[in-house]
């Protein structure tokens, strides 16, 4: 039971990085398929397609950020040694990681689909690039809110 708290906290960090990362990979894959289709017909749209394809990648970065935040809080970065955590504190850190893990995973997939739709839109109407970026960016709002929630929750957890 000595390391249960630490294990729970690390599990939370792993979830944040992994689920958000998986979501981003899927989202970028979906948008990439659409980008490849549009660019087969018009290779000049590479720049616009790349921007839209990259949008679902942010959730993975947010997950990684939270994972670093947790590792830092646990004292696992910098070589100072892990702080002592009881299971209750470990569970609190795990819970703090869940918003970005779950929302990041799910929102990245849907952002990928929206990005794909936007890529198809610029495939037909290149002049609509501004509008095309806004649509998938709306999905980003909820990933940012989840990131903020995770950060605020983590800041509230007292350790050491």
């Amino acid at each position: 039971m000595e390391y249960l708290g630490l294990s729970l906290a690390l599990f939370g960090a792993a979830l944040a990085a992994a689920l958000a990362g998986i979501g981003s990979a899927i989202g970028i894959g979906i948008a990439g398929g659409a980008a490849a289709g549009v660019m087969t017909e018009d290779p000049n749209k590479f720049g616009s397609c790349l921007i839209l394809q990259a949008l679902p990648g942010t959730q993975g970065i947010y997950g990684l950020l939270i994972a670093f935040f947790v590792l830092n809080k646990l004292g696992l970065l910098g070589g100072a040694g892990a702080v002592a955590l009881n299971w209750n504190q470990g569970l609190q850190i795990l819970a703090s990681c869940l918003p970005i893990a779950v929302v990041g995973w799910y929102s990245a997939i849907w952002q990928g689909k929206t990005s794909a739709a936007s890529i198809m839109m610029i495939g037909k109407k290149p002049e609509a690039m501004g509008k095309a970026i806004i649509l998938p960016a709306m999905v980003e709002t909820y990933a940012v809110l989840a990131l903020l929630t995770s950060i605020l929750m983590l800041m509230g957890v007292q350790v050491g």
Partner: protein
Amino acid sequence: MSYVYTVARLRGMENHILDTAFFSRLMDSASVDDALKALGETSYSQWISGAGNFDKAIDSEMLATCQELESFVPDKGLLDIFRLPYDFHNVKVLLKGLFKVRGGESEGRRYDLLSKLGTVDTEELTNAVETEEYSYLPYGLTDLIPQCWQLWDAAKNAQAVELLIDHQMFRAMLGVADGLGMPEITAWVKHRIDAENLRSAVRLSRMKYEASKALPFFHEGGTIPPDDMARLLNEPQETWGRLLSHTDIGAVLSALQDSGDIKASLSDVSKSLDDYLVRVLEGAKYSIDAPANVLLYLLTKEAETRNMRVALVCVAGGLDREFGRRLLSNGR
């Protein structure tokens, strides 16, 4: 397999589809040469070699489109649904030719009417039909062609043979659609059968055909049973829109009725039905991965080739431009 790439590529290809405004302008050309010059910047230019050759050029463009789609569409069945009617058309051409040859007309064969758009190579099909070696033919043709011969030998009725072929064609289309496991494609085939049945009903009604004898003209498999279609012939055409108001296709009749055009020419009714079949699939436009987009693109391209034919025939034949414009499909 994902259709995101496929749909995105089709969106890119849609940019090259010629719209009805282009065809309207094309019809204003003073001569065929001017019209062909106007086509210089379109994908048709690579196929056009002379003024009298545009029919082949139009077929070549459609064939090239099918071949291009075949290279990246995950399910070939989607293309087969579009292409197999051309196989059945080819079988009709070959059989009718052979019927004439057997009847003593040495010039009965019309290979020029064969379409290369079918899934079976025209030479192979011709060879199979002429040598009576049908065993490898797809879509039930193996059994169908001997049945056609039996029917011909018994009754010498080319129309009955044609109907037999059409019945099998729609059965084959439904079979391919069911095999794909895509409900929206199966639904579209059912609408296609309804449209064909309605076209037949309008034609039969104008010929004052008796409802009791009309049942063989209607195909099974649509959303409206053949019996109901045949019963329409007992009613005045003006009431068909109301009688079919519970069906999707009833809207086509209602629209014609609302425009006071219920007695429209057959070509106008056909055009409305073709447009309806495109409209049925239009919901797929808003999806990033709906396979129905493949069929939608093919139908739009087919409408383009139809418009091209109408426009060039109008210019070449010096026909009334307004009449020609009425015949243009709302392809894009």
